[in-house]
C-alpha cells in the first residue's frame, strides 16, 4: 500500500514537472478558430497542408463564430493565443482596437473566396420565390401598411404576396454571434425595408429600429450551426431556414432552395454576382506569429494557391465560390509585404 502511495505521489510530481517544462517549448502547430462557415474550408486546407508538407504539423481548427474567433485572436501575442481567426465578415473597428490594446498590431487580412447565403425550406414543401421586401414583411416586428407602421399582421406567406405558398410564416435565422447574421441584415432586410416604402419622416434611429427589430413569435434565432437549423426544419416543415450555400449543396436531398429576386443561388450565379445575398470569406493572420509558429506563412500561401481555392480547386468541390485570380494575387501580394 505504501509503495502504491509513493508511486502515485511520484506520478503527480512527474505530471507537474512535465507540465512546466512544456511551457518553455514553443508551439509547433498552427492554431485557428472562428467562423463556422469558414470552418469546413479551413479544416480541409489544414488536412491537405498536413498531408502535403511532411515537415509541418496539421493545423488545428476550432469554431466559435466570427465574433468568438476575433475575441480569441485579439487576446494577445504568444503561444497561448491563436494564430489565425476565420471570419465571414471583415473585422470591426472595435475588434481592431481590442487587438491593438493587447499588442496585436500586425493583422493581415486574407480574402479567399465567396459564399452564398440561401433560404431553404423542406424539400417536400412549397416553392418559394422571394424578394427582400417580402422577407422584410415576414420578419420585421413593425411593417408599413397603407403608409403607416403597424404591428406585423401577416401570419401566412400568401398574405404578403399571392404568389407565395399558403403556409404559416416561420423563419430560422442565424443569431448575432454568426457573421452570416450581419450579411443577412445588410443584404436582405435593409434593402427589403427600403423597397417596402417606410412612412416618411422617420428619424435615422427609428428607421434602424424598424429594420433590426424582428418578430419574436415566428422568428427563431439559431446560435448553433446549420445542423441545428436543419433540425428546426425537420421538426416544423413550414420553417424557412437560412443556410450557407455549401451546406445546402450537401443536403439537396432534404432541402429546397428559395429563388431570390428571380435568381436561383448556385456556384455560377454567385460567382457572376447575379445572386444578391453573397459575401466574401476571410481569415486573419497574426503577423507577430509569422516566423515564430512554423508553417504559418506557408499555410497562408498554400490556402491561396490555385489547386486549393482557385477555379476547379479542392475548396470549390466543397462549395466555396472562387474569387477572380487577380483578387487572389492582390491579397497574396499584400500578405507577403
Amino acid at each position, binding site marked *: *500500500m505504501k509503495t502504491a502511495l509513493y508511486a502515485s505521489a511520484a506520478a503527480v510530481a512527474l505530471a507537474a514537472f512535465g507540465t512546466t517544462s512544456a511551457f518553455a517549448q514553443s508551439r509547433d502547430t498552427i*492554431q485557428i478558430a472562428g467562423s463556422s462557415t469558414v470552418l469546413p474550408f479551413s479544416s480541409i486546407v489544414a488536412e*491537405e497542408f498536413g498531408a*502535403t508538407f511532411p515537415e509541418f504539423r496539421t493545423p488545428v481548427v476550432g469554431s466559435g463564430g466570427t465574433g468568438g474567433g476575433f475575441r480569441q485572436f485579439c487576446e494577445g501575442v504568444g503561444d497561448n493565443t491563436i494564430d489565425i481567426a476565420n471570419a465571414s465578415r471583415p473585422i470591426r473597428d472595435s475588434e481592431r482596437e481590442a487587438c491593438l490594446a493587447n499588442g496585436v498590431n500586425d493583422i493581415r487580412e486574407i480574402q479567399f473566396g465567396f459564399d452564398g447565403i440561401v433560404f431553404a425550406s423542406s424539400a417536400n414543401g412549397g416553392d418559394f420565390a422571394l424578394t427582400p421586401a417580402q422577407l422584410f414583411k415576414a420578419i420585421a416586428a413593425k411593417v408599413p401598411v397603407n403608409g403607416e407602421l403597424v404591428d406585423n399582421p401577416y401570419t401566412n406567406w400568401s398574405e404578403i404576396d399571392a404568389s407565395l405558398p399558403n403556409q404559416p410564416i416561420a423563419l430560422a435565422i442565424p443569431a448575432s454571434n454568426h457573421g452570416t447574421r450581419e450579411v443577412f441584415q445588410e443584404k436582405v432586410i435593409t434593402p427589403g425595408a427600403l423597397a417596402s416604402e417606410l412612412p416618411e419622416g422617420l428619424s435615422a434611429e427609428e428607421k434602424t429600429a424598424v429594420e433590426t427589430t424582428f418578430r419574436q413569435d415566428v422568428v427563431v434565432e439559431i446560435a448553433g450551426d446549420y445542423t441545428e437549423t436543419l433540425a428546426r426544419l425537420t421538426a416544423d416543415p413550414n420553417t424557412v431556414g437560412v443556410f450557407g450555400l455549401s451546406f445546402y449543396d450537401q443536403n*439537396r*436531398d432534404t432541402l429546397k432552395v428559395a429563388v431570390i429576386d428571380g435568381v436561383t443561388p448556385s456556384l455560377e450565379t454567385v460567382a457572376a454576382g447575379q445572386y444578391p445575398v453573397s459575401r466574401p470569406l476571410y481569415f486573419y493572420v497574426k503577423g507577430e506569429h509569422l516566423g515564430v509558429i512554423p508553417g504559418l506563412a506557408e499555410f497562408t500561401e498554400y490556402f491561396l494557391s490555385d489547386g486549393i481555392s482557385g477555379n476547379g480547386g479542392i475548396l470549390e468541390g466543397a462549395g466555396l465560390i472562387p474569387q477572380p485570380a487577380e483578387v487572389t494575387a492582390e491579397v497574396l501580394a499584400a500578405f507577403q509585404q
Partner: protein
Amino acid sequence: MTDTTLSAAERRKLVRDGLARRHLNERLFRTFGIVAICLALGFVALLFTDVLRKGIPAFTQSNLHLEVTFDPELLKIDAAPVRAAGQSDADFRSARLGWERQVAMLNWNTIIEAGLRDAAPAGFEIESRQLLTISESDARHRIRQLFVNDPDLLGQTISVDLLASANTDNWIKGNINRDLGDAQQQLSAPARALIDIFEQDGTITQGFAWSLFTNVDSRSAPASAGLLGALMGTFWMMLIVIVLAVPIGVGSAIYLEEFAPKSRLTDLIEVNINNLAAVPSIVFGLLGAAVFINWFRLPLSAPLAGGLVLTLMTLPTIIIATRAALKGVSPALRQAALGMGASRTQMVFHHVLPVTFPSILTATIIGVAQAMGETAPLLLIGMNAFVASVPGTPIEQATALPVQIYLWQGNENRNFFEARTSAAILVLLGFMITLNAIAIFLRSRLEKRA
C-alpha cells in the same frame, strides 16, 4: 386517548372497514411501480434501438479495389535521392524532404482516374471529375505514400484497396433516396450507374470499417474519418484523471474521516464537498478555462487541461464514495488494531483501507466512466477544435470521444455522418459498459476474498 375506550369488537370493525382501502392502495402502488419500470425500460430500449439501427450500418464501409499503375508518363519525377558517401544526415534529410515536396506536388488523381477507367466497362462514358467522385479524396495521399515508401514502384502495377467516397457509400446503402432526380443527388447520373456496375462486378465491396478505429477525423475525406485521435485524447485525459483524482481523492477522504478533528471547519468542508458533487459540469469548464488556460497558461485544446478539469469534477465523487466506504467499516476493527498498539496510520493503512478497497475501486471506475462521457466542460477549453493528428503527448491538441460525437453531429454531410455519429456513440457506450462491468466484476471478486 379516545381509542382506549373502544371495545374489542368496535376496534375489529374499524380495521376491517379500512382493509379494502389499504389493499387497494397497495395494489395501486404496485401497479404504479410496474408501469414506471416499463416506461423506463421502454425509453432505454427506444434509445438503444435507434442508435443501433442508425449506427450498425456505419461499421461496414464501401471499399474500392483498383489496379493502379505508377505510369512514368503521368508521374514525371526525379529519382529519389540516394545517400551519397560522406553526405551528412542533415543534407540527406533536406534532399529527401525536397524530393517528397516534389512528389506531393504531382497530380496523383491522374493515377487513380486511370485505375478507375480501367476498372469501368470498355466504352463507358464519364467525365474525369465525375469519375473521381467515386473514390474518396484521400486516395491520392494513400497512393503517394505508397510511392514515397517505395520509389521503385514507378512503372509497376499494383492492386490497392481504397475507400469509396462518402457519397458512394450513401448511394450504395440507400442513405440518400435513390428515386430522387439528378438535381437533388450528390453524384452525377453516370457516376451512380458506374457505382452500381462496380458493386455487381466486385470492384466495390462492403467490408468492416477499420478506418473508424485507425484514422483520425477528416473533413476533406469524410469516408476516412475515424476516432483514433479522439480515443487517444480520451486516453490521455483518463490517465490524468486517474493519476490525480485517485490519490488526492482517497487521501483527503481518509484524512477527513479518520484523522480530522470534528469541528465546524470540517463540517463546512464536508458540506462543500457534497455541494461540489452537484455542481453542473459546465461550471467546471468555465472554471477550467479561467484558471488553467488564462492563468496557468496551459495550451488550448490539450488533454492536459481537459484532464485537470475532469479531475476537479471527479474528485468529489471519489471523496464521497471513499468516505462512505470508510464509515461502513466496523468500529471493532479500529479498536482492535488500536488496542494491539497500532498507530492510527497503521490502523488505517493496514486494517481499514484493505477492507474498503473494493468499494473505493468501484467508485473510482464509475467516477472515471462519468468523466469519460463529459462533454460540456471540454467545449469551453477548446477541445471541440478540428484536430487531424493523433496526440502523442497530453500537451498536444486533441479532441475527446464525446466531443467527436458532437462534432460529427454538426457535419454538413448529414447522410453520411448521421450513421458515423451513431457508430461513435456505440463505441463510447461500449467503453462505458466495459468499465462498469469491470467495476462490478472486481467488486464481487474482491468482496468474496475479503
